[in-house]
C-alpha cells in the first residue's frame, strides 16, 4: 500500500535525480583539463614511496584548494581505482586496494590527481609508489599514551593490522586499575614468546606461554632494581633485561622538555624454563651503567649500551656517553665471555641507545644522540646503521630534524618501522621504510590511517612499535584474570 501515488512524471524525476546522484558525484574530469607541472600537496606525504604489497590503503588528503577532486591510482597493467571527492579526503576502498597491490608486485602505482576549481579541472604532476614484493609483518604492536611527564592514566597496548585499519587492545589499563603497562616484547617478531610489564598494585611481568598468560615477579631480594628493558633470546629460553634506576627532570628552555637520566643500570638474565634470574656478569668492578640488551639472531652475542657510572655529586648528565658493546654467550651453560667494544660513540662526543639487529644478522641499527640513553626526548636523535660484517657505521637517510628513535625490523629483514616526531615535534608516529640487502633505505612514510587527518588531531604518542607475524589476542576477561592472579616468584641464581 503506497501513501503517495507515483505518477510517470514523478518516476522520470526520481530517475533523473538518482542518475544525478550516481554520476554527478563521481564524474571525473574526462579529457577536459589543464595540466600543472607540480606535485599536488598531499597529507600525509605518500609520494615516491616503496610500499609493501600487503599494506593498508594509503589514504590521504589533497591540500590544494578546489571544489572537487578526482584521483586515479593505476598500475602498469592498467588496473585502476578511481575516487571522486568533494573535500579532498581520499579514502581508498580496501578491497580494491588489496587487489591492485596484489597485481602490482614489483611494479609502480601511478597516482593522477585532478582538482576542479569552478568549472576547470587541473591535473597535477603524477607521482608513483613502488609496490615491493616483500611483505611487511601483518601486525604492529605499540603503546598509546600521552607524551606526558610524570603522570599517566590511560595506557593502551594496541595491536594494529598492517593490512587493514583494524586494531584491538592487548592491554587497556582501564581494566586493571590504571596500572602502568610497558615494554611489550616479542621474540624476533614471533608472538609465541611475548611479555609485558605491569607496574602498580597488580604489577608483575606477564609472560605468554603455551598454556596461556601468567604473571611473574622477577624481582628478588638479591636485586636492587627491577627488570626493565627486555630482549628475548632467539631460543625463547632466556630473556635479557636491564635493571635501571632512573630519574626524570624538566628543562626550562623551549628547545628541550624532559631529561630522563639513568643513575645506575646493570644487566640481568632470566631463564624462562627454570624461572631463575641472575646477573649478567659483565661489570664485576661495578664501574659502568649497562642497558638496552639485544641478542644477535644466532643467540651467540648479547649487545648492550655502556657508559661509565655517573658522578652523582657533579651530576654532569650531558657528559654521559654510551658506547655499544657485545659479549659472547653460551646458551647451554648460561655463561658469558669477555666484553668487546663494537662502536665507540663517545669518541665522537655522542651516545648510542636501542640497538636492534636485523633478523638476518647483517645490520644493526642504533639511535645516536648527544648524550644519555633516553633519546625519545632528544630532538637531535637519529638512526644509524652498523654493518655487522665490517662494523662500519653510517647515518641512515631516513632521519628528520626531529627525534627519530625506537625501531623494529620485519621478520624478512626488508622493512623497518621507527618512531619519529617529525610531525609535530612532540608525539611519536610509526614510520615505515624499506631496507634492501645492502642496508639502503627508501623514503619513510607514516603508518596509514583510515582518516588521513588522524595524526593532525590525535594527541597521544605511539610508543615502542614492534612488528610481529601473528596475532596476540587478550580479552578483557583474560587480562583481568592474569592481573588479579598471584605472581609466580622468580628465584635468584648465582649461575655458578
Amino acid at each position, binding site marked *: 500500500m503506497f501513501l503517495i501515488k507515483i505518477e510517470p512524471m514523478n518516476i522520470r524525476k526520481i530517475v533523473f535525480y538518482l542518475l544525478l546522484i550516481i554520476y554527478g558525484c563521481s564524474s571525473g574530469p574526462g579529457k577536459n583539463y589543464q595540466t600543472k607541472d607540480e606535485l599536488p600537496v598531499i597529507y600525509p606525504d605518500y609520494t615516491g614511496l616503496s610500499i609493501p604489497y600487503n599494506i593498508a590503503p594509503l589514504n590521504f588528503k589533497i591540500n590544494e584548494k578546489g571544489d572537487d577532486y578526482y584521483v586515479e591510482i593505476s598500475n602498469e597493467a592498467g588496473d585502476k581505482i578511481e575516487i571522486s571527492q568533494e573535500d579532498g579526503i581520499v579514502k581508498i576502498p580496501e578491497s580494491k586496494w588489496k587487489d591492485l597491490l596484489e597485481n602490482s608486485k614489483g611494479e609502480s602505482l601511478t597516482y593522477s590527481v585532478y582538482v576542479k576549481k569552478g568549472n576547470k579541472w587541473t591535473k597535477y604532476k603524477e607521482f608513483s609508489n613502488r609496490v615491493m614484493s616483500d611483505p611487511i609483518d601483518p601486525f604492529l604492536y605499540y603503546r598509546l599514551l600521552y607524551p606526558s611527564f610524570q603522570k599517566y592514566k590511560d595506557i593502551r597496548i594496541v595491536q594494529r593490522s598492517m593490512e587493514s585499519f583494524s586494531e584491538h587492545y592487548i592491554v587497556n589499563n582501564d581494566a586493571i586499575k590504571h596500572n602502568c603497562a610497558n615494554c611489550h616484547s616479542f621474540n624476533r617478531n614471533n608472538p609465541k614468546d611475548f611479555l609485558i610489564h605491569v607496574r602498580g598494585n597488580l604489577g608483575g611481568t606477564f609472560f605468554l606461554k603455551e598454556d596461556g598468560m601468567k604473571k611473574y615477579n622477577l624481582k628478588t631480594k638479591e636485586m636492587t632494581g627491577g627488570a626493565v628493558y627486555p630482549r628475548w633470546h632467539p631460543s625463547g629460553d632466556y630473556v635479557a633485561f636491564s635493571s635501571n634506576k632512573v630519574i626524570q627532570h624538566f628543562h626550562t628552555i623551549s628547545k628541550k*622538555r624532559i*631529561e630522563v637520566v639513568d643513575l645506575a643500570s646493570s644487566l640481568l638474565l632470566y631463564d624462562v624454563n627454570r624461572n631463575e634470574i641472575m646477573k649478567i656478569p659483565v661489570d664485576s668492578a661495578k664501574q659502568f651503567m649497562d642497558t638496552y640488551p639485544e641478542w644477535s639472531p644466532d643467540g651467540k652475542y648479547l649487545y648492550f649500551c655502556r657508559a661509565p657510572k655517573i658522578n652523582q655529586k657533579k651530576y654532569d648528565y650531558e657528559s654521559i656517553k654510551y658506547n655499544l658493546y657485545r659479549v659472547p654467550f653460551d646458551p647451554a651453560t648460561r655463561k658469558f665471555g669477555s666484553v668487546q667494544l663494537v662502536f665507540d660513540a663517545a669518541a665522537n662526543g655522542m651516545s648510542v641507545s636501542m640497538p636492534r639487529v636485523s633478523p638476518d644478522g647483517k645490520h644493526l641499527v642504533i639511535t645516536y644522540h648527544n648524550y644519555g640513553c633516553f633519546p625519545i626526548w632528544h630532538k637531535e636523535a637519529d638512526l644509524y646503521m652498523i654493518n655487522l660484517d665490517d662494523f662500519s657505521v653510517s647515518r641512515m637517510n631516513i632521519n628528520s630534524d626531529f627525534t627519530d628513535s625506537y625501531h623494529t625490523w620485519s621478520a624478512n629483514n626488508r622493512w623497518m618501522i621507527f618512531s619519529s616526531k617529525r610531525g609535530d615535534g612532540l608525539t611519536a608516529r610509526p614510520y615505515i621504510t624499506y631496507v634492501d640487502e645492502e642496508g639502503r633505505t627508501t623514503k619513510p612514510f607514516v603508518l596509514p590511517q583510515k582518516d588521513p587527518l588522524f595524526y593532525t588531531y*590525535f594527541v597521544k604518542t605511539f610508543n615502542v612499535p614492534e612488528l610481529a607475524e601473528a596475532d596476540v589476542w587478550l580479552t578483557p576477561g583474560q587480562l583481568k584474570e592474569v592481573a588479579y592472579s598471584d605472581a609466580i616468584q622468580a628465584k635468584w641464581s648465582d649461575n655458578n
Partner: protein
Amino acid sequence: MSTVNTKLIRYIPLVMYVIFFSIIIYYFFNYFEYVFFYQEKSKLFLTTFFDFKTYLDRPGGLLEYVSDFITSLYYYPRLGALIVAGEIILIVLFSSLTAKRYSGRNCYLIPFVIGGVFFFMHLNHYFLNVNTLGVMLQLALFYSVMNFSSKKTGYIIAILFPLWYYVTGVFSGIFMILFIFDNLIKKEKGYLFRIITIAGVWAIFFFIGSNLLFYKGTSELLYGPFTYVNCGGQEVLFVYTVLLLILLPAISMSLPKSITGFLDKKELALKLAPVIVFGLVIFFSGQRVNRGNIDYFEVEKLFYEGKYAELVKYNYDHQVLNRLSLFLNNIALSQTGQLLNRMFYFPQDKNGGTLFLRWGDDNEIRKRGGYFYYFIGMVNEAHRWAFELMVVKGYMPEQIKMIAKTEIINGHYNSARKYVDMLKNTLFYKDTGKKYEKYLNNEKLINSDPELGRIRRLLPRHDFFVNPEQPIIDLDMILKYEKNINVRALEYQVAYLLIRRKVGAVVSELPLFERAGYKKLPVYVAEAVAPFKFLNIGKWPELKYLKISDDVRKRFYEFNKIQNSKKPNKQQLLFNKFGFTYWYYVFYRK
C-alpha cells in the same frame, strides 16, 4: 464558591512545582552559580565524532556524553541552573506520577523530598549532573514505557534492557527494579518469566561485556558512571534517596487503610504538604551557602577573564582568606605591577604558599599552580602542569588554553595546532581557538600580543632543571643566569624574602632593581631596607640612583618611635597608622 475552591485546589500541585522551581532557581542564581562555573571549567566538551567515540567503550558512556554536553552549557551558569532545576522537577513529577499509577492517589510529599535532596546534593560543586540526569531518565522511560506496557512489550523491554544498561550504566538498575516491581504487582501471565528474562539478559550481557567487550574493572562496569568523586562524597545520601525513589510506588500502595482514608479526606493538606519540604530545603540550602566558595570562584572567574585589577579589588573588599584566592591575588598584583607595593594588604603564608603552589597530587593545586610559572616566563613548567592535569583529568578549557598558549610561545606550532583545533571544536571556545590559530607561525603577531609577546620575552635562555618542590630555587636560577633581569621573577623572589623576613637578602638584591630599570624602590622593599639604611644594621650595597624616599624615612622613624615606646596600646596605634606596612608585618603579623 465551592466550585471555585475545588478549581483552586486542583491547581495547588502546579503551584507547588512552580514554588519549588523558584526556590531552586533563587538559590542557584544567588548563592550557587559557582557550582556551574566550576563544573564547566572541569570539562571541555568536544563536538568531534572522534571524541564521541571515546564515550562508547563503557556502559553509561552515552549518558556521560549527554551529561557532558549539558555541562558545557554551564558556560552560562544560569542556563545550567535552569536545566538542573528542570531535571529535578522532572524527577519529582515522574516519581509522583509513578506512585499515583500504583496507589491510585496523588502523592506529593515524598517526591518533593526526593527532589529536595537532589537539589541539596547539587549544591556541592563536585556533584555532577550525570547522576540527576541518569535518575531522571530512568523515571521518564519507566513512566513512558509503562503507558504502552503489555505482555508482549514487556518481553521486548526485558530483551532490550541491556541496550539501556549500555546507554545509562548503573542508573538503569532503577528501571530494572521498577520493571520487576511492576510485573510483581500486575502478576500478568508470564510475569516471572519476564522478570527472569530482564535479569538474565542483563547478567549475560554483563558477563560478555566484562570478559569480551569492555576493558573496565568489574566495579566500574557495575557502578559506572556513578562514582564517589562525581557525587561529591554524598554517596550514602544519594543511594538512600534512590532507594526511597524506587520504593515509593510500593510505599504508596502499602499504606494502611486508616492512613489512606485519612489522606483522602485531607486533599488540601496533602497537596500543600510540599510546603514542609520547601521549608526544609530553604533551611538546609541556607546551611550550605559557603561564602568562601562564592568568593573563591568569583576570584577565579576574574582571573580567567584577565581582570586583575577587579580581582585585587574583590579580594580586598571581601577580605578573602582562601589560600588559592590569595595565590591568584598575588599573580594579579604581579600582573598589575603592585606585588611589592600591596602584597601585605592581604594575608600571606609564611612559607610562601600564597606566592607559589608546590607540585603534588592535589588536582585542585595542579589546576592553578602552573599560572605562577606562566607569568614569570617559565613556560615549559606551566605547560607541564596543564599537561599533567590533562593526562589525569581529561580535557579542561583553561588547561587546553594553557597548553595551546605555551606551545605557541615556545614556537611549537604543529603541536599547538592540535590544541587550538580542540578549542575550535567546542561550543563556546571557538573564538579563542580561532584567535590562537592566527598566531600559528606568525612570529610578528605573537611578539606584539600583550600577553604572549611579553611572556615570550621572559623565556629563560639559560637551561636548568626545574625544582617544582622549591620554586624559589627556580627564581634564584633565573635571576642568576639570565642576561636581562626578569622583573616578574625578581618581584616574586623579593616577595618571598619579605614574607620570610629575610631583610638582609632583600638588601643585597637592591642593585637588581636598578638593573631592571626601576625608577624608585617598591614600597615594601623600601620599608624593608629602611632599618638597614637608617639604623646602620648591615652592609649597604652601592646604588647608582635608587634611594629610600623621604616619606618612607619619616614614616620609618615615626614607626620606630612608637615601637620603642612603652605605650600600652602601641600595637593598636601602629595598626591604625602602619597596619599595611612591612614594619607592622614583621613585628605583629604571624
